[in-house]
């Protein structure tokens, strides 16, 4: 037990005791209790003001007038007040109201609502094109009761079907056929889950509830990369946080002095691990028995669920479990189980996908590392609005990183070593060498590092329970929290002109998906629209925006003959072109077809006698060849 006790050295030196979480009204004095209760109402006032202003502002937002600055461009200026009220109330509460743990939790719930429920309410449809593709896989499972692991269409999803199978399973049981409505609320639900899970993880690093809740605020405001939608990665990330919390809090190995004494190397490693963990609170290690068996089984199931749902998360989990094992904070069993499970899945179950992708990934090993900047938007090409959004994303990330470094230094100065937390920041870094993940790997690495960066960033203000909460600290924290929350709206919702879909545009695509025959070719301006959510296997999609530069140049020079040639293909039973306002917003903002190329194509098709507009809304046009209309059936008039 020496190791466990020694880790708490700095805490033992406290001049006054830290009020632990969950203990509620620990001081027994009635006067103190009454005083604390009297302070609750003023502490709730900023929260109530924030919610009142937020609700009032919701009625004044018109998403149809959004420009390249995204959601922020349609928010009235009063809509920023809730961010200020929440930040002020939250940080004042955690500095002054230590006895009411539920108060900061309420503020964090309100923050999630303000940040994530606003788009869900205002847009009225499922945001983000990839979320629609995920619905397509759920739809496939509901119709077929199986997956097609050899299909080239969205094949990764068919080979890692866990999340989709569970979604189809739950949807069938609750009698919901169309998940587009409930899935709209996924960001709210997922962030509430993160909010619930993160404190469990942070309690492994500190007893200071100010640092725990501040880190949660920083995580929620810093998680701008938008993986918290209806997606396998969103749920798998929740599993990842819960798994680490479980391992760090409850599954530390039982100390076995006899074993350690026999191994000089182990002894040295244990001494190093002990030094690196200096200052950590004592973990709630469970004794051997039923409790430990159940929590170990929970960890195994979490690893299994991640493995069958997502490609990337289990790899990071293996890395993190390896780190915990190296620090002797976890027996090697879970690490080995994760490695074997992932290897089995990748090499056997997902073999049809891996056989195609693995040679490319092996060829590109190390390439992703050298092309980190290639994953970022080229500010010189994109529209001014998108250039600003890119800048905010970078500043937000940089701000958290700098705060984390400064916070880490402050913790060090207070006598904490935080070796595990530092190592867990680095856990996803090997991915940079292994895969480019379609150019997204930089963002995913940031996501997996963020919980620990947020912990260190919070330590900038609250490095130790021994440090008080002077007014200067509280004010700095309020300003920092407010800046993060505002930057989040720009960074997370800055592309919503491309990602938010009008209900009439969704209905137009649904009309096509539900009527077009199997074997249909669908030429799209760009993949930025609600696509592949019904009958996904019926369609072959070709995106103009993703064509090689020469092909795009030919298309822009002669749109009608080129597109007529593409559509006049007997390999397909039908062929359509779909052009939407979201596609146009994307193509124009990213400079993919300079000189209004998208609009020129649209006008050329409208003017050409060779094409017929078969379905149109104010934002979506669906064309086919005039000669092809005959014989298509009554659904095309």
């Amino acid at each position, binding site marked *: 037990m020496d190791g466990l006790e020694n880790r708490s050295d700095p805490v033992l030196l406290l001049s006054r005791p830290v009020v632990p*979480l*969950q203990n509620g009204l620990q001081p027994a004095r009635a006067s103190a209790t009454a005083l604390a209760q009297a302070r609750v109402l003023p502490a709730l006032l900023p929260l109530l003001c924030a919610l009142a202003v937020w609700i009032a502002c919701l009625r004044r937002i018109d998403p149809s007038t959004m420009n390249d600055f995204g959601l922020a461009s349609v928010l009235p200026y009063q809509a920023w007040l809730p961010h200020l009220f929440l930040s002020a109330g939250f940080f004042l509460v955690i500095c002054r109201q230590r006895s009411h743990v539920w108060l900061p939790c309420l503020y964090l719930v309100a923050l999630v609502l303000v940040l994530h429920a606003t788009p869900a309410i205002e847009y009225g449809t499922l945001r983000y094109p990839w979320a629609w593709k995920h619905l397509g896989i759920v739809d496939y*499972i509901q119709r077929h*009761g*199986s*997956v097609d692991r050899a299909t080239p269409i969205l094949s990764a999803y068919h080979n890692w*079907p*866990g*999340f989709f*199978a*569970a979604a*189809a*399973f*739950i949807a*069938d*049981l*609750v*009698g*919901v056929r169309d998940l587009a409505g409930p899935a709209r609320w996924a960001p709210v639900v997922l962030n509430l*889950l993160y909010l*619930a*899970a993160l*404190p*469990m993880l942070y309690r492994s690093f500190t007893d200071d509830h100010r640092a725990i809740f501040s880190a949660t605020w920083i995580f929620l405001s810093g998680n701008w990369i938008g993986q918290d939608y209806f997606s396998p990665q969103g*749920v798998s990330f*929740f*599993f990842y946080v*819960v798994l680490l*919390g*479980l391992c760090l*809090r*409850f599954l530390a190995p039982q100390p076995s002095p006899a074993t350690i004494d026999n191994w000089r190397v182990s002894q040295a490693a244990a001494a190093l691990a002990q030094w690196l963990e200096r200052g950590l609170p004592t973990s*709630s290690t*469970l004794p051997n028995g*039923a*409790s*430990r068996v*159940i*929590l170990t*089984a*929970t960890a195994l*199931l*979490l690893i*299994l*669920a991640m493995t*069958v*749902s997502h490609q990337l998360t289990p790899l990071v989990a293996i890395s993190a479990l390896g780190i915990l094992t190296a620090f002797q904070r976890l027996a090697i069993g879970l690490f080995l189980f994760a490695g074997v499970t992932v290897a089995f899945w990748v090499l056997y*179950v997902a073999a049809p996908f891996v056989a195609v992708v693995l040679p490319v990934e092996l060829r590109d090993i190390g390439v992703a590392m050298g092309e980190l900047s290639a994953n970022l938007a080229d500010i010189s090409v994109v529209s001014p609005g998108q250039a600003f959004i890119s800048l905010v994303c970078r500043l937000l990330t940089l701000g958290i990183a700098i705060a984390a470094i400064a916070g880490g230094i402050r913790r060090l100065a207070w006598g904490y070593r935080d070796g595990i937390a530092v190592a867990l920041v680095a856990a996803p870094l090997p991915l940079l060498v292994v895969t480019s993940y379609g150019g997204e790997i930089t963002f995913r690495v940031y996501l997996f590092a963020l919980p620990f960066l947020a912990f260190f960033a919070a330590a900038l203000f609250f490095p130790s329970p021994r440090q008080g909460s002077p007014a200067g600290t509280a004010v700095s924290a309020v300003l920092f929290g407010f800046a993060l929350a505002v930057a989040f709206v720009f960074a997370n919702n800055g592309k919503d002109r491309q990602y938010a879909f009008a209900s009439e545009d969704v209905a137009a695509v649904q009309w096509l998906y539900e009527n077009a025959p199997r074997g249909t070719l669908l030429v799209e301006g760009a993949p930025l629209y609600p696509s592949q959510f019904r009958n996904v296997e019926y369609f072959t999609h070709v995106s103009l925006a993703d064509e090689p530069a020469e092909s795009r140049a030919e298309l822009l020079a002669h749109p009608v003959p080129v597109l007529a040639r593409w559509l006049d293909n007997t390999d397909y039973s039908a062929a359509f072109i779909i052009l939407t306002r979201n596609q146009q917003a994307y193509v124009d903002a990213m400079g993919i077809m300079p000189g209004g190329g998208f609009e020129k194509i649209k006008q050329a098709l409208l003017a050409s006698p060779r094409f017929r507009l078969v379905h149109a809304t104010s934002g979506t046009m669906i064309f086919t060849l005039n000669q092809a209309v005959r014989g298509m059936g009554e659904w095309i008039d």
Partner: protein
Amino acid sequence: MDRLKASKILLIGALTIAAVFAIYGGLVGLVRAPLALPFLLVIPGFAWLNCPGNLKVADLAVLSIGLTLAMEIAIATILLLCGLWSPQAGFGILLAVTGAGLVCTWTCGR
């Protein structure tokens, strides 16, 4: 058995019966989801995690949701890949797992 443990078992039982009634009873519309979802999101995990008695309420809630979702992913994936897809059968398995968890809770610490 203490009163807290008994009330937990009663809660699990009530929500399980509500879900069985909603799903096997063929309820449709707005009533079905509110009756079935509490069970589908929390209860199977909660039934098992009652045993480690020293979990804090917040940890118990998070772990219950995590374990329940992980169980459902595992069950649904196995049914899917084995060609035995049947949400009703999967629900039956979840009920059995919940029952086993209840037995574990009942006997734990006696």
